[in-house]
């Protein structure tokens, strides 16, 4: 089952990654200064999407290790 989740999170991460790259590099308006980053962080939607992105990436990256830990328990 975990390999299915690995595929699904992977596909989702591709979508997130394209959006992230376009937002951060393609749009000149989205600045990288202290004020600009803090202003972006004020939007709850931005934080929700960012947290989802990080959580999915962490799951996708550490899936093998979770599997190993589960195997140790049984």
């Amino acid at each position: 089952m975990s390999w299915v989740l690995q595929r699904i999170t992977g596909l989702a991460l591709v979508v997130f990654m394209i959006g992230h790259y376009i937002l951060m590099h393609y749009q000149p308006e989205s600045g990288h200064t202290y004020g600009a980053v803090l202003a972006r962080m004020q939007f709850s939607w931005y934080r929700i999407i960012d947290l989802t992105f990080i959580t999915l990436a962490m799951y996708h990256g550490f899936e093998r290790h979770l599997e190993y830990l589960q195997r140790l328990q049984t």
Partner: protein
Amino acid sequence: METESKPETTYHNIQTFDQKNWISENLSYKKDLGSWAWILHRITGIALIGYLFLHVYSLSPLTEGEVAFNNKMQVFTSPFFMVLEWFLFAFVLFHSLNGIRIVIVDWADGAKFQKQLYKLSWVIGIILFLGMGAIMFAHEIKNLF
């Protein structure tokens, strides 16, 4: 009277992984395109999860005020990290394109043409690297000259 007993599952007969020579054994294994795809997928995956930590850490001085943030940002916009950014873009491209290839192999009967898909992912990757890279990093490229 003979009792039919199920043979106990023992793992003594299973050939154990030769830990002493695993490097030479792995190196001597004949690698096809798919093997290289697997190896590169693993390497880029480990690199990307390492980068994720650095990426989140680079935003941590947001809690320490503007001066600390600008100091950190100056480090992360140095030429060394600019070069790393290009590597990152290449790694992300390979990992996502090869990942899409793996999904096609798993779910869309792509095992029949997995080698062609691998080559195609390289072609698409190089085109996207040059094209999107030039657009996305136009600002950085302009600053170089």
